[in-house]
């Protein structure tokens, strides 16, 4: 799938600063790396900068001209700021907090939206194959194969979110960014998404922002803990949860704040 030499890490964040207003940093001097075929969880209390950090990884901040970014992020060794933003976003997919299928499109159209939005023309059998594969990969195929041409917004919240994952992986990205993907879902739908992420890491590298510690403990391999814009601590999830080095991490994990 990947022709580039398998350099580890997949993503390498170097001295990243992000400010919404001049000199007021939401992310301060963060350096970290994201390992291949792992789930890396970014945790921390609200406002700690975890989503801001995630959204830097596909340069989504550039949609908002007042946000300033300093520092660098390397994708497979190459600076994401030197790539075309379109290519970057095709290689780094994203799933959002609230399920957001395109309301004007059917389930089928939603899955191939990445292609149609980019004016990439596919033959019908190619499209059918992509749709079926992506929906099978998110365990949604059996539930929707009879209603592929209904609007995606008719699905339940959990199904919509899996549809959004399918839409993001239809392009076969290197990395999948997930911004609190289960925070709008009920427990059953949440556990389905968590199972799904466990499957997806075999093919993709996942970065998961969550405010839910137990979720991070359950499904992530690597964890980062952020507080007030700083990356306090990162490492294998097991180590970080059992023997945190920083007192702030310990305080967060034991529920003293957050």
């Amino acid at each position: 799938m990947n022709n580039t030499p398998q350099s580890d890490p997949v993503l390498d964040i170097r001295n990243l600063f992000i400010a919404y207003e001049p000199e007021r940093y939401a992310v301060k001097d963060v350096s970290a790396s994201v390992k291949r075929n792992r789930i890396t969880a970014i945790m921390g209390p609200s406002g700690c900068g975890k989503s801001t950090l995630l959204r830097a990884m596909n340069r989504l901040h550039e949609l908002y001209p007042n946000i300033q970014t300093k520092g660098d992020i390397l994708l497979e060794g190459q600076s994401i700021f030197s790539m075309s933003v379109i290519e970057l976003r095709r290689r780094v997919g994203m799933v959002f907090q609230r399920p957001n299928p395109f309301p004007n499109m059917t389930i089928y159209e939603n899955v191939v939206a990445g292609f149609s939005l980019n004016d990439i023309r596919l033959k019908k059998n190619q499209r059918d194959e992509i749709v079926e594969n992506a929906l099978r990969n998110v365990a949604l195929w059996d539930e929707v194969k009879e209603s592929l041409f209904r609007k995606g917004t008719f699905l339940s919240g959990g199904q919509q979110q899996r549809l959004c994952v399918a839409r993001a992986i239809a392009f076969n990205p290197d990395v999948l960014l997930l911004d609190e993907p289960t925070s709008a879902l009920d427990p059953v739908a949440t556990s389905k998404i968590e199972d799904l992420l466990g499957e997806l890491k075999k093919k993709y590298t996942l970065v998961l922002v969550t405010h839910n510690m137990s979720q991070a403990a359950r499904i992530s391999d690597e964890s980062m803990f952020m507080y007030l814009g700083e990356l306090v601590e990162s490492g294998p999830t097991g180590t970080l949860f059992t023997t945190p080095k920083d007192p702030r991490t310990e305080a967060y994990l034991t529920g003293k704040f957050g």
Partner: protein
Amino acid sequence: MSGDRITKALLFISSLTILLLSTGIVISLFGGAIPAFREFGLGFIFSSAWNPTAGNEEYGAMSFIAGTVITSLLALIICIPMAFTTSLFIAEYYRGTRTSGILRSLIDLLAGIPSIVYGFWGFYALRPLLVSTGLSDQGFGVFTASLVLAIMIVPYATSLSAEIISMVPAELKEAAYSLGATRREVIFSVVIPSARSGIIASFILALGRALGETMAVTMLIGNANVIPKGLFAPGNTMASVIANQFGEASGLKMSALIAVGLLLFLITALVNYLGKLIIKRFA
């Protein structure tokens, strides 16, 4: 009586006043129009006669209905490309920037200019320009009126559709951007389809405005009580004929003018209702 009950009574009375006022207007319109309809029947709507000579009196609303509909639709056609692109520009392309803020205030400013000033401008600036092109002898007519009318409804249509466009959720646009879509693709595949019905509704409401606009049109349309024979020919609209003739009207003629007013009221109400219905269904 407790303060709460006094407040309730006051609010009730003022709401009731509004209700009584609007019912009163409708009743007096209907009442005033009865003699005309009794004399000419439904033929009043379809006849284009307008003859106030005593003994030979004959009235029909068709010339004015045609004038109103033609100028309004033409104004709408001219308005759509301007208002649509401007609203995209301020609500999406330059969203949140200084440029967009300045443009928005300018549009609000345009919307606040009194109708008579637009008419004046059309009369002294636009009409001579049209005469100099040779398309029209005196510059009065359907086209001049429609052009000024278009300029008058552009601010209204623009700010309504900009409102609708800026309501398209950021998360939908971000989803499209995160799939590698360019700005143009996001606008045409996500923003416009999501906002489409609202944009259509805002143009329908703008049409509602154009239908009832009086002063500027009266100054420019030429006030000929006939169905306009061409784009540059003079005509008259429902609102203009009332404004021009009510002062010297009495008897059957007055009733005919009121009947024209009633028809205008019904057409405008219908158009506005349609626009609001569409907005309600999709908001």
